[in-house]
């Protein structure tokens, strides 16, 4: 994996998160407000990653047409799906640490911390090494 591959992996997950929180916000009343907050946060990171990939000379990956067909109808479904995508984002952020420079690592650290806390908010357990274990 090169630095660019690591960023693209993270970017692909941010596209998924934006899609997921948009869907949760539209379909699950009980957690719509939390989903809206997460949606805004992930859009910002997604846009930042697109420009980072662009500047690194890559072609930023786009969103997939769909992300699986499992239905997210209840707050419980929403928590499961949201904590899953946040934990996968945490793992992508840890991977970025390998080849990144200081600025890249600082950005990955803020993304990792945000993902770990969001995972907790959406019901994931506390982990010793989020993104690593």
């Amino acid at each position, binding site marked *: 994996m090169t630095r660019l591959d690591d960023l693209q992996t993270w970017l692909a997950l941010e596209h998924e998160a934006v899609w997921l929180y948009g869907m949760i916000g539209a379909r699950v009343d009980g957690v719509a407000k939390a989903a809206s907050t997460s949606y805004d946060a992930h859009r910002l990171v997604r846009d930042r990653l697109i420009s980072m990939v662009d500047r690194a000379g890559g072609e930023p990956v786009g969103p997939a047409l769909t992300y699986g067909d499992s239905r997210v109808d209840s707050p419980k479904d929403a928590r499961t799906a949201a904590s899953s995508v946040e934990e996968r984002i945490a793992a992508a952020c840890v991977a970025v640490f390998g080849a990144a420079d200081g600025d890249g*690592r600082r950005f990955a650290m803020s993304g990792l911390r945000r993902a770990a806390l969001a995972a907790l908010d959406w019901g994931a357990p*506390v982990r010793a090494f989020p*993104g*690593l*274990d």
Partner: protein
Amino acid sequence: MSRRTLLGSGLTVATLAAAVVAARAGGVLDDALRAVGVDPHPEPDPGDTQSLERAATAQAVLIASIDAAIGAHPGLEGGLNPLRVVADEQLVAVGGSLAATSVGPAPADPKDAAAELARFAFDSAEARGDAAVSAASPDVARVLAAMSAGLSQLATAIGVIRT
């Protein structure tokens, strides 16, 4: 085990961090690195070793403080015990131990005791994050970054314990 395998395995990376710290103390660093599948050359960066040692020391203080809080306020035990398990996993991974650690008494009010723990975990998360950004070894950077995120989770979880 190849280096690629090592990089792919979080638990192995964490074990590596413990091995680096423990082996430095015992003067058998090269053997320890060979045991976890890493070519022992070049030597680990002294700054990285120091970062892992600092992580181990702070982690021992956090756990000793959790124990002091539980001892003084049994009502905190149910909330703190599962978090102590996670904190201990972090301690072991960076090669730390509680042996030489002592802390002062917990604050008299359980709310203050919990707030003090949360603040310490928060500060540790910041310190591990800074060390992760400046680490020389990618493996050490990953371990410290993930540990920092875990300490952020711990600080948040301690902050919402009902006292």
